[in-house]
């Protein structure tokens, strides 16, 4: 195992030097993917609703817990709402505020993650093409040069995959957190609706005109 990890490190150092001109775009893509991914991950992981674990809280905790994250969550609740429709409209607004930027970024991240292996494949194909075209006007030990060319051409594919696989795992974590956030907002909404309907409030309910 230690020798293998060493060889992997050596490879990692070699990779950037022996992969051809497409290694530069791949490097840029790597930086771009991971910046986006970490930015997004922090966005959802440290969102005050997720941090306060709002989706697991009971109504009492939501109402009285002194933690700052829960205080911020309470600011989203409309205590003056009287009907569930009102609450629904308000929370549609809340969702629109938090979710679309995250969803947009998730879609974008998914696209650039799939671009990694494709870019690597492009590098491999161009590398092989240049190998074969070089074979045509080269004399000498052809097979050896082909082998070397192909093995270097494959490095970009390898790099693309090495980049993408951890990013995929990261993306799945992000999506999970985003779903947690959705649950948090839904939880708050339910709490708010119950408040609006004054179910467990000693104050008598405001009589509503019966719906047609």
């Amino acid at each position, binding site marked *: 195992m230690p020798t*293998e990890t060493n060889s992997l490190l050596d490879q990692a150092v070699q990779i950037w030097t022996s992969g051809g001109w497409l290694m530069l775009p791949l490097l840029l893509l790597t930086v771009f993917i991971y910046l986006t991914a970490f930015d997004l991950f922090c966005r959802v992981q440290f969102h005050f609703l997720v941090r306060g674990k709002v989706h697991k809280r009971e109504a009492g905790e939501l109402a009285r817990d002194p933690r700052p994250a829960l205080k911020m969550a309470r600011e989203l609740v409309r205590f003056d709402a009287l009907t569930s429709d009102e609450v629904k409209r308000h929370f549609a607004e809340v969702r629109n505020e938090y979710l679309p930027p995250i969803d947009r970024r998730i879609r974008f991240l998914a696209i650039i993650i799939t671009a990694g292996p494709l870019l690597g494949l492009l590098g491999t194909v161009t590398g092989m093409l240049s190998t074969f075209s070089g074979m045509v006007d080269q004399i000498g030990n052809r097979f050896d040069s082909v082998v070397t060319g192909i093995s270097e051409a494959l490095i970009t594919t390898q790099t693309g995959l090495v980049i993408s696989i951890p990013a*995929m795992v990261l993306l799945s974590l992000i999506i999970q957190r985003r779903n947690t956030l959705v649950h948090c907002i839904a939880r708050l909404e*339910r709490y708010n609706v119950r408040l609006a*309907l004054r179910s467990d409030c000693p104050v008598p309910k405001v009589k509503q005109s019966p719906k047609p």
Partner: protein
Amino acid sequence: MRAFGLLFAILFFLPLTAPAQNLEQIATEREAKLENALERLRELRSEIQAEQVPLARELNQKGARADELADEVDRVQRVRDNRSVELETLRARVDGRQRQVDYVKRTLLPDYLADYDASLSPAERPKAGEAVRAYNLFLEAPEASESEKLDRGLALMQESLAQVEALLGGQRIEGQALSPEGTLRDGSFIQIGPLLYFATDDGALAGLVEETQSLNARVLPLEGEAAQSVAQVAATGRGELPVDPSLGDALAVDATKDTFLEHLAKGGIWVYPILVFAVVATIVAIIKLVQVFTIRHPKPMVIHEIVKALRENRQKEARELAAAQPQPARDMLIAAVDHADESIEMIEEVMYESMLGTQPRLERFLNVIAVTAAAAPLLGLLGTVTGIIKTFRLMTVFGAGDPKPLISGISEALITTELGLVLAIPALVLHALLSRKVAGIMAYLEKSAVTFVNGLSRSAK
């Protein structure tokens, strides 16, 4: 002839030279001389005549002899010509023969003996192989004549034929072979045609013989009855032998089969993350399957019964009925019964909230399976690409003459892809199955809630 010439000369010149003394004298003298001359002439003629016949005869004889000799010369000439022609054909034939002999000596015999040497089984090799080596040394020796070399080669060929003959009936040969532990053991080989067995003298180790690259053959030990019978044949020369009709190919194929763990270990470093994914996803899948498929739904009539009990103001009974239902419907129904005296909106609200608590609980960790399904093939591909790069790098170091390492390297590199797909396909199916099941449960809960609320609102009117 000369006699006649002489005569004429005398007749002519005599009167000129002789002085004219007196005629008489001269006449008589002449007469006498003439007589004398004539006499001599006659003598000479008769002499000539006498000599002429034998001479003529002798001349005839000589002529005949000359003819004979000329004939003789002709005949001899002919014979000599024939001889030279025959000599040419003989020379050509001798050349042809010589070429044949050379071909046999330089090409056929060495080739045959090399093949023979290569085809020797480990049992025959010590003796017969030594003979071939001695022959090869003899060929190199400077003092050996060509015919001796040929004779040695032919004798060796006869020996090899005798050896083949002996194999048809089977033979026992004393020798040494490697035990499975790698120690050299004395014993005897049994060879029948292409089949080769070995048994130690004490019969402790008996089995088939496997050719190896090394100097000695290796024994593949047999078990039980087969081993006993081999040992018995080795000891007594009689008995039955187990036969491997594939001539060791079956054993070779069997040797290429590796266990599951060996197979995994060949895949390289990227097998481990795939295995981690596999273990985690399997555990999650089992837990989720148990959790989701053990969920029971309340019977459709139960909802109506609860509503009926509520309508008839039997709160306690309704609550008991609700508490008797399986989860997650139970929580929802209990909450609904507890709030039954409030507005319909409120009842809807509490039921919805209870459902909201259920959904994340059911959906939790499903994304682990989804990520596994997505990442496992990519990880497999990564392992394959890495393996191929490694193989090709090694090939640039050790040369690309032999395709075997390339093929084995690529086949080992493909193990991770295989593993990734083996993992991803069930993960995909399971994820789809579980998601559908969860959606179904939620839909059923919703239906129950709607049924409950509708029943209550009808009773409220």
